[in-house]
């Protein structure tokens, strides 16, 4: 059909593989032969796995990356439709419980190349320097085995590789600026700015968000269609599917889609030697590898380790500390909705386009530690209906009436830090999935600090909504962004991996996704997951064959590689003072 923007579309069948409206995947993909040993088998192609595979491939390693879901062709597979996008989410069986059970499914993680970055809203704030030391500073949670300074250069890399649009000056945490210009406001962003301004709260308008505000290379700019959480068919929103996976393939990595890894195999000398997986036809196969990296998200990563229990690791692979699956975190993600007299039409513009981190840090005047952010969100009709069910108990004619008013509502999201608790965890349930593998059972309870933070935070967000001029303000409880469950630390007794993602128990087994985060701050985790992945990559690259041949742990931090970015990313964008980067 003809399109006012892009000219004639190619017909979907038999035509090039599309990654967004313009970018095609036209390099042939290397395929390793059956039985061939590779350097790295990576499980998962999401935020962590996608970036890691790209870097390892660029550095010349032989890499196979598995994903349980499809290799999306965005033209052929994706739709501008809420219900029709259900396939993007991880919807295999799972069980959820505890005193505050987490909604999973579409609320949590993805399945398919690109992982959850396919359906993330693409808010890309950094953690604050304080987030790395909350135990020392506030006596809660745990300190990271890293400093903000260790991660900062990787944030700068990722902000160019996605790239991130945002204001020239971002005042919170470690103040910094963004390489690409901020986005225009939609109705929800306008409301956030109005409300914050009325209360004297600074607000960041138009980002930081991994969405193009102007076209770059083969990626068109955002067209403000509001379907980010359904996958961006345009290719304006960053996902590892379109930002890093193509470069991984161009550099020789093999992406094995529709392949569910069932078990990491332990060989001799307490070293792993590959992974078992169910291929697209359902047969169980084995891939031999010199080292294995798990990047399957905070539920599937611990599940895979637990399912890989074997002689010597009866409680799960790399679980001598009994920490695998524990300290699972989710952020408080309450949605606050306000009805305005004037229409808002919140379905336009990306859901993610303005935020404030004014309440991020611990404030001694409050009766809880740590803090929260306030962000724009833009539920489409089905999500909005579900929110009204929770927020107002709406059903029947009452639900119909509220939805008839859909265009008058705006919504903000609370994003609050929930502390790590040992009892918040992923375990194996008795029931099995379609492969016969025990499914994950997720248990989640709020602690005292968490409840106080949520109460304060949601009231503050409601206050902002009122100040924006809303006549009626309601809210629903919600939790988002699972991280943790295989945390990093210096002490092998209380953590699963060291500060380079290497499991304490097994020298050639690594974890490279959100699971390794010891605490989460009030920043959406994606950018941090990617930055940690780039850092882990630099370590693996400099270690080279030592990873494959020796159990010795070199704890030396490696120099940053500025030559591994996908083409035309690093060094582009607005010039900013980056003196400390000149090497």
């Amino acid at each position, binding site marked *: 059909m003809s399109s006012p923007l892009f000219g004639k579309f190619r017909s979907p069948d038999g035509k090039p593989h599309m990654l967004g409206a313009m970018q095609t995947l036209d390099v042939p993909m290397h395929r390793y032969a059956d039985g061939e040993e590779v350097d790295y088998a990576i499980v998962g192609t999401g935020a962590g796995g996608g970036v890691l595979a790209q870097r390892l491939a660029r550095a010349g390693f032989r890499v196979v990356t598995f994903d349980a879901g499809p290799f999306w062709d965005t*033209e052929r597979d994706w739709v501008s439709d809420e219900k029709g996008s259900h396939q993007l989410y991880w919807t295999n*069986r799972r069980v959820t419980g505890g005193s505050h059970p987490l909604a999973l499914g579409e609320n949590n993680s993805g399945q398919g190349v690109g992982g959850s970055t396919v*359906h993330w809203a693409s808010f890309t704030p950094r953690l604050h320097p304080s987030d790395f030391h909350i135990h020392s500073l506030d006596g809660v949670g745990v300190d990271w085995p890293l400093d903000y300074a260790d991660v900062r250069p990787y944030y700068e890399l990722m902000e160019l590789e996605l790239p991130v649009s945002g204001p020239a000056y971002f005042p919170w945490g470690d103040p910094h600026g963004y390489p690409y210009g901020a986005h225009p406001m939609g109705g929800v962003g306008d409301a956030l700015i109005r409300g914050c301004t009325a209360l004297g709260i600074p607000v960041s308008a138009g980002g930081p968000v991994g969405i193009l505000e102007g076209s770059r290379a083969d990626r068109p700019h955002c067209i403000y269609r509001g379907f980010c959480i359904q996958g961006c068919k345009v290719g304006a929103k960053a996902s590892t599917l379109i930002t890093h996976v193509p470069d991984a393939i161009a550099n020789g990595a093999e992406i094995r889609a529709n392949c569910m890894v069932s078990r990491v195999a332990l060989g001799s000398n307490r070293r792993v030697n590959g992974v078992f997986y169910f291929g697209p036809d359902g047969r169980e196969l084995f891939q031999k590898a010199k080292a294995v990296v798990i990047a399957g998200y905070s539920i599937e990563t611990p599940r895979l380790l637990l399912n890989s229990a074997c002689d010597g690791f009866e409680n799960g692979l790399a679980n001598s500390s009994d920490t695998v699956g524990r300290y699972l975190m989710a952020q408080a993600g309450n949605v606050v909705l306000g009805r305005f007299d004037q229409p808002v039409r919140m379905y336009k513009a990306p859901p993610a386009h303005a935020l404030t981190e004014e309440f991020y840090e611990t404030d001694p005047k409050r009766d809880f530690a740590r803090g929260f952010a306030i962000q724009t969100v833009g539920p489409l*009709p089905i999500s909005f209906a579900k929110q009204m069910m929770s927020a107002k108990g709406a059903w029947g*004619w009452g639900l119909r009436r509220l939805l*008839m008013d859909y265009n008058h509502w705006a919504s903000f999201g609370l994003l609050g830090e929930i502390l790590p608790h040992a009892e918040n965890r992923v375990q194996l349930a008795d029931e099995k999935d379609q492969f016969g593998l025990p499914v994950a059972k997720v248990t989640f309870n709020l602690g005292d600090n968490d409840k106080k933070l949520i109460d304060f935070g949601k009231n503050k967000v409601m206050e902002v909504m009122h100040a924006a001029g809303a006549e009626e303000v309601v809210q629903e409880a919600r939790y988002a962004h699972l991280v943790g469950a295989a945390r990093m630390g210096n002490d092998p007794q209380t953590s699963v991996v060291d500060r380079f993602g290497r499991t304490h128990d097994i020298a050639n087994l690594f974890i490279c996704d959100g699971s390794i985060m010891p605490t989460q701050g009030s920043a959406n985790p994606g950018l941090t997951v990617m930055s940690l992945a780039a850092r882990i990559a630099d370590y693996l690259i400099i270690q080279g064959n030592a990873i494959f041949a020796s159990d010795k742990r070199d704890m030396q931090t490696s120099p940053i590689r500025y030559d591994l970015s996908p083409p035309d990313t690093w060094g582009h964008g607005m010039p900013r003072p980056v003196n400390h980067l000149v090497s």
Partner: protein
Amino acid sequence: MTDTTARDADLRPVDPATGKPLGPMETPGYYPRYHTLDQQKFWDAKTREVILDRVNNVPPIRFFTPEQARLLEAVCARVLPQDDRDDAHKIPIVPQIDKRLYEDKGDGYRYEDMPPDREAFILGLQAIEQMAQERFGRGFLDLRTRAQEELLKALHDAEPWGAHDIWERMPVHRFFMLLVKDCAENYYAHPYAWDEIGFGGPAYPRAYMRLERGQPEPWEVHERRYEWEPPNASLSGEYESVAGQEEQYGSPGQGGTH
């Protein structure tokens, strides 16, 4: 005591200005003559295919028995009433729920205190039927609308008067949320519902351009508001939170947002 036999005379929302019931009509709501489907030539091919399939092909009933399907129809007619829509523009809900359960699809996860969705629906329907018999001495299908609503309101309030053996196996508020969720997921997936609420629908590759002040695109229409009231006698027009949670944090939102 409610008269359980007679049918209600009119189940349609009322126009307070005239006191007359509204409809049946093609497009309820405040956006008269707005049709998202008119824009289909501006949608990408895949989106058009998926949405037209939803509109044109109503799936056959394969999971529920005919009796169960009829019962669920009556339940959904109160959970997401469509009495103000003309027959040509009623939105099929039960066939879509049936399809989901037949294919055993959905969000994949279940609450630890809940059975899997298939079982939950069967148990829920049984409980509804038992409660109808217990209080009114007849099946749910044969109840007057008001009595049907009383029964569903009891589930909403987590105060079922019967079928306790079933509600012990399945928390009533979770079943109620599941039921409303499935109805809403299908009703608001339909272009006719988009017309009702003034949602622009798919906008790729064309884009939205008027981001400010809630303005309609050139091809959308302005809202034309009037007072709208649910049917006078209906119990579902009021808002009270779904009961049965130990505390306010216990009923997490299920839609992904940020």
